[in-house]
């Protein structure tokens, strides 16, 4: 699974992307985020307040209940501020 991080999620986690293999019990975005929080203090800090974390799976916005599967591209980022 390819993980991408943007803006302050990227700086807090300390990397912009990584390839990970979450355990089989990680079945949706919510489970993925909980699992990521256990990977270190940077992850825990970046994902402490999930109300300001947006998620895209395969480049489409999805809710936290959306399933994740091996091979997915999953991006985590704050609310967008372009324009």
């Amino acid at each position, binding site marked *: 699974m390819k993980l991408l991080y*943007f803006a302050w999620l*990227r700086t807090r986690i300390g990397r912009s992307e990584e390839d990970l293999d979450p355990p089989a019990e990680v079945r949706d975005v919510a489970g993925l985020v909980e699992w990521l929080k256990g990977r270190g203090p940077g992850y825990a800090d970046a994902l402490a307040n999930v109300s300001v974390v947006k998620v895209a799976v395969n*480049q489409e916005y999805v809710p936290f209940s959306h399933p994740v599967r091996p091979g997915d591209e999953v991006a985590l980022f704050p*609310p967008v*501020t*372009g*324009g």
Partner: protein
Amino acid sequence: MAVRVQAEDFDIGAELDALTRGNPSIGGLCSFVGLVRDMAGGETVGAMTLEHYPGMTERQLEAIEAEARARWPLDATLVIHRYGRLEPGDRIVLVACASAHRAAAFEACWFLMDWLKTRAPFWKLEETGTGARWVEAKDSDDDAAARWGTTP
């Protein structure tokens, strides 16, 4: 009908001319240009860096543009959004809509800007006198987007 995401500046006159040239059924062309301001939240902004999500940005802009074309009778549309480091006065974004009638051109252009603000994956890092900071999303932008009805 075009979406471009680029670091380079754009030439407003050339872009708008190209959009309407050769189509005399167009009666009105509405455009919006967003520019970097030198002040934000009471602080001086020396520059900003626009980060984006390559691939998803284009997909989202194309989806927003398609939604505008489904809602209004448009002859031509254009969205150009820059990324990278920009200074006050620099152009950030150009949105343009051409239609036989002016109301459709105005509405579609405003809709595109409002939706783009809340859906296109860009993030602004501002350089201020007290350091760099990520711009926070505004509730007023969510409200502006919500005026146009349910997002798909």
